[in-house]
């Protein structure tokens, strides 16, 4: 035997990976549909309603259309990098799902199967690392297009993501001080037994939420694709499914950051006011996954609501907000949390 590996474990993880990737993609697909419907409701329109009942097949029609469009690669661009750009955007969008605890353990075929692909003991840092990788897809694509507008869009996206990563990291440090662990699974378990982290870190959550909007390039932070100044942003030169990948990666990012927020601050798969240990394990795991999805849908709705309500920032406003408001606020939050944690450790004595 060349490799002594537990085959059942490999199969189990493979099945889990396929399910998570497929689910992310399908949910992202229907998020595009939901976005158009929500936009329609907010603007007093009907939205897409021709493909299938209530327009339910619209995402499939969109996907098919993108597949059948002519594919154009600009003459003077670097072809390999031009293709690498959207692939990287998609890859980094999907990679985060590996450390998310999607649910509790289920019991099948005499095995306890954890609904988490990898419970690494530094899950939150992994998420952070993947987020910081996300900028490459945009930068490489924007540069390889060999177009001034694309390059401007890519540079804007990069500087924005770098700026907001800092505040995001500092708000996470405050959260880590409260939870005392980096593992996402342990965080969820702690929240199941006690209060949700939002109760301890309301300011931290607000900072994290704003940064998540910026990292996903969503309005009001979508200057990278400001169509009135940059034609279309970093993906001007893209067509067909490569454009589809960029647009799609944005929705996968939105889904994943909603999952991360729900896991970090809103108890993950925890069902409030219910002791999961009293009921059947498998059913509780299923309901836990559904609960997580319900929280995620709430966050995704928030993303859309904000998009169709708040206009885009100016670029200097964006940078001022990131560097002069969010980072000092996050530092203050970290200091306050540190002081309180220390006080609590000393039994509330100075």
């Amino acid at each position: 035997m060349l490799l002594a590996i537990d085959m059942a474990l490999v199969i189990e993880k493979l099945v889990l990976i396929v399910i998570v990737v497929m689910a992310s993609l399908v949910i992202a697909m229907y998020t595009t549909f939901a976005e158009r419907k929500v936009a329609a409701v907010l603007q007093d329109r009907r939205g897409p309603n021709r493909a299938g009942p209530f327009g339910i097949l619209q995402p499939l029609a969109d996907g098919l259309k993108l597949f059948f469009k002519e594919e154009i690669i600009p003459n003077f661009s670097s072809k390999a990098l031009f293709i690498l750009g959207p692939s990287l955007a998609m890859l980094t969008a999907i990679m985060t799902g590996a450390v998310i605890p999607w649910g509790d353990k289920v019991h099948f075929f005499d095995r306890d199967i954890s609904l988490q692909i990898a419970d690494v003991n530094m899950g939150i840092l992994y998420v952070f690392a993947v987020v910081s990788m996300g900028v490459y897809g945009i930068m490489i694509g924007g540069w390889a297009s060999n177009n001034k507008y694309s390059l401007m869009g890519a540079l804007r996206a990069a500087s924005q993501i770098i700026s907001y990563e800092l505040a995001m990291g500092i708000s996470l440090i405050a959260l880590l001080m409260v939870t005392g662990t980096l593992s996402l699974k342990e965080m969820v378990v702690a929240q199941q037994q006690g209060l949700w982290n939002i109760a301890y870190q309301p300011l931290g959550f607000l900072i994290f939420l704003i940064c998540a909007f910026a990292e996903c390039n969503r309005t009001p932070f979508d200057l990278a694709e400001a169509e009135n100044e940059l034609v279309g942003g970093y993906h001007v030169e893209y067509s067909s499914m490569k454009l589809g990948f960029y647009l799609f990666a944005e929705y996968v990012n939105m889904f994943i950051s909603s999952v991360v927020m729900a896991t970090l601050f809103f108890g993950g798969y925890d069902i409030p006011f219910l002791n999961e240990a009293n009921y059947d394990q498998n059913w509780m795991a299923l309901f836990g996954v559904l609960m997580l999805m319900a929280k995620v849908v709430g966050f995704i709705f928030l993303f859309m609501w904000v998009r169709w309500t708040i206009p885009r920032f100016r670029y200097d406003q964006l940078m001022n907000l990131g560097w002069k408001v969010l980072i000092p606020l996050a530092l203050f939050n970290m200091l306050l949390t540190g002081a309180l944690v220390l006080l609590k450790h000393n039994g509330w004595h100075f």
Partner: protein
Amino acid sequence: MGITQILFWGLSVLAIFAAIMVVASKSPVHSILSLIVVFFAMSGHYILLNAQFLAIVNIIVYAGAIMVLFLFVVMLMNLNAGSEPQKHRMLQFAGLISGGCLFLVIISAISETPQAAGNVMIGTGNSGLIKNLGMVLFKDYVIPFEISSILFLSAMIGAVMIGKKN
């Protein structure tokens, strides 16, 4: 050959190939992308050594932040093979010889260390885990740690001052 060894060889080949590409490729952007691959391969090695914190920080800081800035500068200046100044052939030879000498010195130094004969302990030891690392940093080495952070702070303030001048 266990799975760790296969991973080790795979990562090593990847790292060396990408490192050669950093030097050999004509376009600066390609060099930077190869350097990012090198960082990822190094992080893989760190994980094999059970130094997970080092691995992830290597990705966050080097691959995620510093290389983005590199890419940023190269893209803004729009460097490419055409505009890059051609180096003199003599300079290239000098670089090759001095680099080769350094390589030889390192090889001989490594081959004479006593550890080279034995196996490196892969996947064992837990000094690289974040908990132990934090304990060591903030208990045994807290003063050097704080001093180095003050050094960072002064570098940051210096950068801001230089930027403010214009």
